[in-house]
């Protein structure tokens, strides 16, 4: 096995690399939940904006919205429409009606989960709002699966959304303000993804979930999300490998949420230091959603990034039989705009679910 390290090796961080075979003994399970009655993914829908539609995964998305405002007065309203359209589309895709849905679990990036709450207002479903930044999709899948596994519900919709313009306004500057971004910045994805989990069905099963711990390696650069989130992904991935006695080769695909180009390279280095080699079967949603020519720096980020990629490209390929077992880890940075200016570092989290055919 030939391993090419990128230039991180020169700074002493990965100096003491000893690639040893991972310990083949399952630890006591603390973070991993194995589902005895694994729920099925029976419906899905992805809605994205124009820029994402022009990206490499463009043809896989179910709906590409050309107008960033969706014909509405505000971007926030467009975000609500986007989430609503994804949820309704996924329910239709599962051959169900809205009345069959027993629980709605959604999340977004805005303060007070505005988009999710306003969508839930218009749907008569019991509703749980989640905030876990960009890892909301995997958290909602984990929670939904646990509910179905326990037998409380039969049909649950999990969905997330993010919008470039609303996130930009909340976390950064006005849209038309001329500012330069550093080359390691990421671009918030305009997109929504929705998954319908059912007790019975034919789709892929969610067989396990890994609940992540909040990890903070002391990064405090608001623009360098990839570097902040990579340790969280490493922590969850290690918990998954150790507690289920598996290794990277046991998965057809390891999919991280939105580490971007830089973050996924860092994750490779971090895992290598721990003795695990992430090869061709590791990809990052943020890294693949945009083309290099689209000038999105390190790639996409946001709650809608991994949600839209998972619910289009990945599950599509899974249904066609290209992948049998994937580990999906979305990563989230749990800072606020104030906390970083107050000198706090960025706490990050990553939840994972294992999807099998």
């Amino acid at each position, binding site marked *: 096995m030939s391993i090419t390290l990128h*230039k991180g090796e020169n700074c002493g961080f*990965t100096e003491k690399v000893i690639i040893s075979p991972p310990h083949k003994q399952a630890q006591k399970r603390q973070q991993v939940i194995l589902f005895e009655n694994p729920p099925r993914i029976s419906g899905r829908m992805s809605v994205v904006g124009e820029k994402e539609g022009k990206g490499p995964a463009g043809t896989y998305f179910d709906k590409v919205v050309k107008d960033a405002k969706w014909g509405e007065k505000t971007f926030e309203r467009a975000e609500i429409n986007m989430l609503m359209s994804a949820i309704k589309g996924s329910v239709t895709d599962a051959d169900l009606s809205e009345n069959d849905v027993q629980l709605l679990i959604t999340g977004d990036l805005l303060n007070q989960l505005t988009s999710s709450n306003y969508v839930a207002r218009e749907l008569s479903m019991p509703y749980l709002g989640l905030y876990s930044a960009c890892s909301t999709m995997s958290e909602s899948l984990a929670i939904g699966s646990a509910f179905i596994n326990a037998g409380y519900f039969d049909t649950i919709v999990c969905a997330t959304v993010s919008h470039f313009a609303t996130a930009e306004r909340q976390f950064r*500057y*006005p*849209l*038309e303000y001329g*500012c330069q971004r550093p080359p390691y910045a990421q671009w918030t994805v305009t997109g929504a993804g929705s998954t319908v989990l059912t007790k019975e069905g034919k789709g892929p099963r969610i067989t396990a979930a890994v609940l992540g711990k909040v990890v903070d390696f*002391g990064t405090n650069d608001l623009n360098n999300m990839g570097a902040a989130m990579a340790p969280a992904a490493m922590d969850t991935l290690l918990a998954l490998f150790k507690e289920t006695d598996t290794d990277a080769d046991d998965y057809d695909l390891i999919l991280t949420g939105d580490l971007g180009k*830089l973050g996924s390279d860092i994750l490779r280095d971090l895992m290598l230091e721990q003795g695990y080699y992430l090869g061709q079967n590791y990809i990052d949603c943020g890294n693949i959603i945009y083309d290099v020519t689209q000038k999105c720096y390190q790639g996409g980020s946001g709650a809608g990034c991994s949600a839209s990629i998972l619910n289009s490209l990945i599950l599509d390929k899974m249904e066609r039989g290209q992948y049998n077992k994937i580990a999906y880890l979305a990563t989230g940075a749990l800072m606020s705009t104030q906390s970083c200016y107050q000198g706090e570092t960025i706490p990050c989290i990553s939840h994972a679910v294992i999807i099998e055919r």
Partner: protein
Amino acid sequence: MNNNAVEERNKRYGKYVSAVTPTTSFWKSLWNSFWIGGLTCCIGQGIFDLFKLAFPSLSQDILGNITSMTLITVAILFTGLGFYDVIARRGGAGSFLPITGFANAMSSASMEFKTEGLIFGTSVKLFSVVGPVVVNGIVWSTVAGLIHLILFGRV
């Protein structure tokens, strides 16, 4: 893990991250901001000279004011049409330092927060980006004035 080990790890990680993080090329940024900033100033001078030709009776001060006003109007127009930020992405400080940068910061904020209404949106948030510029402008010009007063005994 105790605190020392965490600090040690964070320091090591920080060092590693700064080694792998791509940086902007210093000379390229410098060149871009130089020619875009310089071009803005040349256009300003051009406008000044044109006004001087058209209205030879006006004083230098008035001509200067008219030039600034023209530049501000053009910058706001560019912001509204949505391509000032494209120039600024390349220009950096070259598009931020001239008066056009200030106009862009204010007009972009007013456009952005228009959705919350004229009072609670535009009026409240109008200075949200340029606030630091205004505050520092007043503070440091006061300091400069005081120094001048102490050194020369007049303002």
